[in-house]
């Protein structure tokens, strides 16, 4: 018995649209089974997980705080993925954005004024872009696989941050805690509506970035270039679009947005650098990008959903005593079902008995050399 994926001749437009919703429904069902196995009433758990965390205004602000970095990063990643370039290292670019942006408040705390925040944000974007340029350079120079290099650089970034806050950047008055000094007032990203909740300008950046990138991808020649090179590289070369230039463009753009998310998070939500500044935003953003169907506007909605899984995870931990790793499980299931649904839109499953020794051999061979060419 063997399972084969057979390409469908036509894609169903209806199911392409419904796919994220079906995936979400399947996640809920699988989640209910998981809660039941944990000995919790699923309905009760869902209420705590998905409804209670957003039942009050200040909680919506918390949602915005969690959603902002997810959206910012995912919007950048969506451009990469549309170009068929696989930046998996947004988490590292996020951290480097945070480190670069923190240079001013940590090393020059006496520098104050309205210029501090814009400079920090700019440095954050530079830091993220710088860190993203490494896998881009490796890919264009040595044809390394960007999935591996960008992913491995995440761990380098995490350890570098860890070393910084325990070593040179540690707060001398911090009783030995591994953290930098608290940022000064002019280095803190202002809150949008201080009376209502903690949400800061990071959420606005995310929305603006989403709209701008959407405009670029759907209306501008640059977006066309991304789509052509992503869908058929040879036609892209025929069009005169440079692939190496595109690698740098997408990595620098997504790196800068991840860096902006990093400095916004540190300057807005945390207020200092510490060994861990992200609950895995850079990785969760990959799910956000795909759940949003690589469309920046869809990503805004997907970012809010994934942000809720974080809040829900915290809520069930405190209310039901279930590990907040449950959030990771939900995110994983969601990605699994999204990719599964997407795959089944393009392919159907065919079961093949052992009796047939050469099933579909020609068709496979037909497809395989094309894949080889595409490399």
């Amino acid at each position, binding site marked *: 018995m063997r399972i084969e994926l057979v390409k469908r001749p036509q894609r169903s437009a209806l199911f392409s649209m419904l796919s994220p919703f079906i995936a979400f429904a399947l996640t809920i069902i699988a989640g209910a089974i998981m809660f039941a196995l944990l000995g919790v009433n699923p309905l009760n758990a869902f209420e705590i997980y998905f409804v209670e965390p957003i039942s009050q205004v200040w909680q919506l602000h918390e949602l915005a705080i969690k959603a902002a970095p997810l959206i910012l990063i995912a919007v950048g990643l969506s451009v990469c993925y549309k170009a068929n370039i696989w930046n998996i290292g947004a988490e590292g670019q996020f951290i480097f954005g945070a480190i670069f942006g923190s240079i001013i408040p940590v090393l020059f705390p006496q520098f104050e004024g309205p210029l501090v925040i814009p400079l920090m944000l700019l440095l954050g974007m530079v830091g993220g872009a710088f860190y993203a340029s490494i896998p881009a350079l490796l890919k264009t120079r040595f044809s390394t696989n960007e999935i591996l290099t960008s992913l491995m650089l995440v761990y380098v970034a995490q350890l570098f941050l860890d070393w910084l806050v325990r070593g040179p950047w540690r707060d001398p008055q911090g009783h030995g805690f591994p953290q930098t000094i608290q940022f000064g007032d002019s280095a803190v990203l202002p809150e949008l509506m201080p009376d209502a909740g903690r949400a800061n300008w990071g959420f606005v950046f995310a929305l603006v970035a989403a709209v701008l990138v959407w405009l670029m991808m759907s209306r501008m*020649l640059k977006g066309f270039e991304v789509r052509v090179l992503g*869908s*058929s590289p040879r*036609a892209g*070369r025929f069009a005169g679009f440079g692939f190496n230039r595109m690698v740098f463009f997408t990595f620098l753009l997504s790196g800068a947005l991840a860096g902006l998310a990093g400095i916004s998070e540190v300057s807005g939500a945390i207020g200092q650098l510490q060994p861990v500044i992200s609950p895995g935003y850079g990785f969760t953003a990959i799910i956000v990008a795909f759940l949003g169907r690589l469309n920046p506007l869809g990503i805004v909605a997907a970012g809010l959903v994934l942000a809720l899984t974080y809040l829900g995870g915290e809520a069930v931990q405190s209310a039901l005593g279930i590990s907040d790793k449950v959030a990771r499980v939900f995110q994983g299931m969601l990605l699994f079902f999204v990719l599964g649904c997407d795959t089944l839109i393009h392919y159907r499953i065919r079961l093949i008995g052992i009796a047939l020794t*050469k099933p579909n*051999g*020609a*068709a496979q061979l037909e497809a395989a050399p094309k894949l080889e060419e595409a490399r």
Partner: protein
Amino acid sequence: MGGTVSANHDRANLLEVRGLTKIFGTLTACDHIDLNIAKGEIHALLGENGAGKSTLVKMLFGSLEPNSGEIFWDGKPVKITSPGVAKKLGIGMVFQHFSLFEALTAAENIALSLNDGSPIGSIAAKARALSYSYGLPLDPDSLVGDLSVGERQRIEIIRCLLQTPQLIILDEPTSVLTPQEADKLFETLERLRSEGKSILYISHRLEEVKRICDRATVLRHGKVVGHCNPRQETAASLARMMVGSEVKAVVRAPAEGIETAPALLQIRSLSRKPATPFAIPLKNINLTVRAGEVIGIAGVAGNGQGEFFESVSGEVLQQDAGSVRIRGKDAGGLSITGRRLMGAAFVPEERLGHGAAPRMKLSENLLLSRHATDGKAFVGSGGMVKNGAVYSAAQRIITAMDVRKSAPDPEAAALSGGNLQKFIVGRELDRKPSVMVVNQPTWGVDAGAAAHIRQALIELARSGSAVLVISQDLDELFELSDAIAVMHNGELSVPLPIAEATFEKIGLLMGGAEPGHAEHSLEVA
């Protein structure tokens, strides 16, 4: 051999197809097709591109499921649900586009498709024996990458024969062969027929259908328009059945004063090292194309035409800027965009994935090659694409080239090959380029569309442009060109004026005869 022809009709049918129908959305690709193939006959399937030939064959080979209709194999009803089922029945297929891995040997490629776990050694021995017995000598241990296209086709045929099929389907088999190689293939097919095997032969080359096929079924717009004995028809009458009307002959007005016309495209000592282990190096190529003329480059596929096209188009840059000159200026160091801006236009061989992005709309595919040359018309301030202007330009090309399609602005992949090619050629013609380089202008394109494209290329030249056509189709080159050069193993012969060129001369050069012959005759002239 000819004596068996009349007997065929009395024999039992190996394959019988009744009312086979396939519907894609609103398009009925195959509409109640009836087809009988007798044992031991070569049956031609004729039709323009988009007539439904491929769809029909895919249903017979199990890669597509019919919406309705019946298939009888040896008189028994069968359902061919997958290529595996087709092979079990005894249906083998040789595809138009080969499916071979270049880095593997012939035997390894065969083993992959047999997939029955027998050791490579025994497969190689079987393949060798079979190939020699059919007069298709093949070394199973040679790397596919080192083989010519004709030899690669042999692998496909041997691979198919190893599965001892009763019915062999050949899709446009001679489109990649030299006249001499094609003759060889016909001998093999006749041999197979004499062994009682049946062959379904798909082609649009009417002369060869007349030569080897016993019966023909002609499709038009998804319907069978007739069964006939091709030997009793003329090429013209067959073409009429296929197209439904007379195919206009291409008219080539005499070119005048070309010797003194400005050289718009000059290639000077162009050489290129192979970029991959399987690429052909280009060796010291010289060529001049003047305003008003069409120069053809003949040659068997895989002799450096692709590498040459990439170098001329600027997809690959030259070290020596003077090795490619467009309108009298060095262009060797410029990208494809730079060369387009100098007035050149290019049509690559592969339509899908090179000349056009398959999943993009026609209007987007227009932007693909013209975003820079028509930057003012198509791209506004801040890099915003003027979708309206692009759309109406695409519609203008669609009308001018008579591109037939199912939606106002469909994806490129949704068009039939011929219609997409008309669009891609039209996209460049619409610019009125002063230099036009076309690789395989009518590969797999039906007669009507091919005539349209060829006429358009001649008219472009006569209006004062330089046109360079690379093609493996000699008929086409003789129809189009004012002079024909031959590419063999990365070298280009001196162009032979059309008045002196014959099939035999060109065929010899294609086979690798000394280019000196051609040079000599030119000097004499």
